[in-house]
């Protein structure tokens, strides 16, 4: 089954990815910038000086005023859209799995980026994995690198194929994953992170790497319903899917209550950190209807319009 069905893709065509900041691109694109340049969007006039492109002279003004004015237009540039999908083993958890959900979100957002002529880099990461477009296939526990920098709607199947092939494995290490990522991708852009953020080292330091690259970061925090509201009872041995660590618990009411408290604190801290640092943050359950998330929630969060 494809990640996105055709009807949904049609809806995506109407969307665009928003950036809070105006980021410098390298190629002409559909995005307006502050820079003066070539586009159909008029910005200003200025006096002609020797060497200016004659094509940009406003001949009508010359005819009326007998003076040479240069018509300035807003430059439109492309935007780099980075989609980072957490493919650590913990993402395989949940019914439906968090990874599938994350893949769909990544596919949808990547498609929106492509459809609007942006440069899209989609990649899955775990931690021990090497990230980036130029990397060869990773070793055990490392997800395959993405199709690299792609552009245009025509590249969408490459994006989908790649995401469909991503499998969850390895332990989460956001810090090294993002460090590698920011070393490979130096152009500022929008970095959309789809992850469960379940990293022992925390998320603060990891996200700092992206911010250092002046990325406009948006975190989509995916958790499974089983994590948000675990329904466990009895004497249990919980097995961590990433580290195979076993913890023995008696799933009693006080423990579940304490878990809820811990979870709420974790979510609260994640959100607070992101908001304080000017990053977008959205918590979603993998049981949530995915199209609704993209078409409605991400809109309300001003990630897409």
């Amino acid at each position, binding site marked *: 089954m494809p990640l996105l069905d055709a009807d949904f893709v049609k809806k995506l065509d109407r969307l665009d990815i928003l950036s809070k900041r105006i980021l410098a691109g390298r190629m002409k694109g559909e995005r307006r910038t502050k820079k003066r340049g070539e586009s159909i969007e008029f910005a200003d006039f200025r006096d002609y000086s020797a060497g200016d492109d004659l094509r940009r002279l406003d001949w009508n003004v010359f005819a009326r005023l007998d003076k040479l004015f240069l018509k300035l237009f807003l430059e439109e540039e492309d935007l780099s859209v980075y989609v980072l999908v957490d493919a650590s083993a*913990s*993402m*395989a*958890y*949940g019914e439906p799995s*968090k990874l599938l959900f994350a893949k769909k979100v990544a596919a949808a957002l990547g498609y929106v980026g492509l459809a609007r002529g942006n440069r899209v880099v989609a990649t899955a990461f775990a931690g021990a994995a090497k990230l980036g477009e130029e990397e060869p296939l990773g070793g055990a526990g490392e997800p395959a690198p993405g199709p690299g920098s792609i552009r245009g709607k025509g590249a969408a199947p490459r994006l989908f194929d790649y995401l469909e092939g991503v499998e969850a494995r390895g332990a*989460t290490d956001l810090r090294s994953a993002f460090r590698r990522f920011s070393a490979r991708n130096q152009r500022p852009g929008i970095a959309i992170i789809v992850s*469960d953020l*379940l*990293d*022992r080292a925390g998320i603060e330091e990891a996200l700092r790497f992206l911010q250092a690259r002046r990325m406009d970061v948006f975190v989509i925090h995916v958790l*499974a319903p*089983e*994590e948000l509201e*675990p329904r*466990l009872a*009895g*004497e*249990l*041995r*919980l*097995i*961590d*899917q*990433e*580290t195979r*660590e076993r*913890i*023995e*618990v*008696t799933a009693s009411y*006080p*423990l579940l209550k*304490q*878990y809820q*408290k*811990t*979870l709420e604190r*974790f979510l609260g801290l994640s959100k607070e950190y992101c908001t304080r640092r000017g990053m977008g943050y959205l918590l979603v359950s993998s049981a949530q209807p995915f199209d609704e998330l993209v078409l409605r929630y991400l809109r309300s969060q001003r990630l897409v319009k």
Partner: protein
Amino acid sequence: MSFLWPLGFAFAALGGVVVVLHMLKMKRREVDISSALLWKKAIEDLRANAPFQRLRKSLLLLLQLLAVLGLAVALARPVRRMPKEQGRRIAILVDVSASMGTREAGGKTRVDLAREEARKVIDGLGPNDAAAIVAFDQRARALATLTTSQPVLRQALAELAPTHVGSEAREGLALAAAILREAAGGEILLVSDGGFPPPGDVDLRGAPVRYLPVGAPRENAGITGLDVRRMVDESEAIEV
């Protein structure tokens, strides 16, 4: 406290079996979770908040061990030697003098009424209580000496019957007191119509006397005896 069958304590060893079973049962269900991160934090916090959590975890085991221990103790049959409880001692003293043969309203003699009263007393005896039954007219006879056996007492009651002579309470009281001699806390229950001369000074050895009257109080008058004799001197004459 001692035990009739101390060997029963060997069953306490079953406690070991319980522990083993418990450990076998502790094969925990394995559940995959995405990450132990949150769970570990939650468990740590819970332990910090509730130091007795660990104890509570083994509450089931503790209860089972207690049950086994209780069973073992029960099997050892604990006994406690208690000083035998002194029951009440009652000497039932029934007047069987001629006046007791008087029929009361309802056609029962006073002896019958006295018997009923005495029976009530006997029925009310506890397992440790003992009673004696003494019948008296001018002399006193012990129909049953101090006993806890109710059949014996009932049998004795059945033997009560009025005689033809007057009553001498003194005799009866003395005998009753003598029967109670050994027993501390004895009590003499005197069942009578009250038709006897004051008993005077009787050594009751400290036993209190309770008087249980039967029959309507009235003057007694009765023909106690009728004798027909031929006069010695005149052969034709008969003396009544």
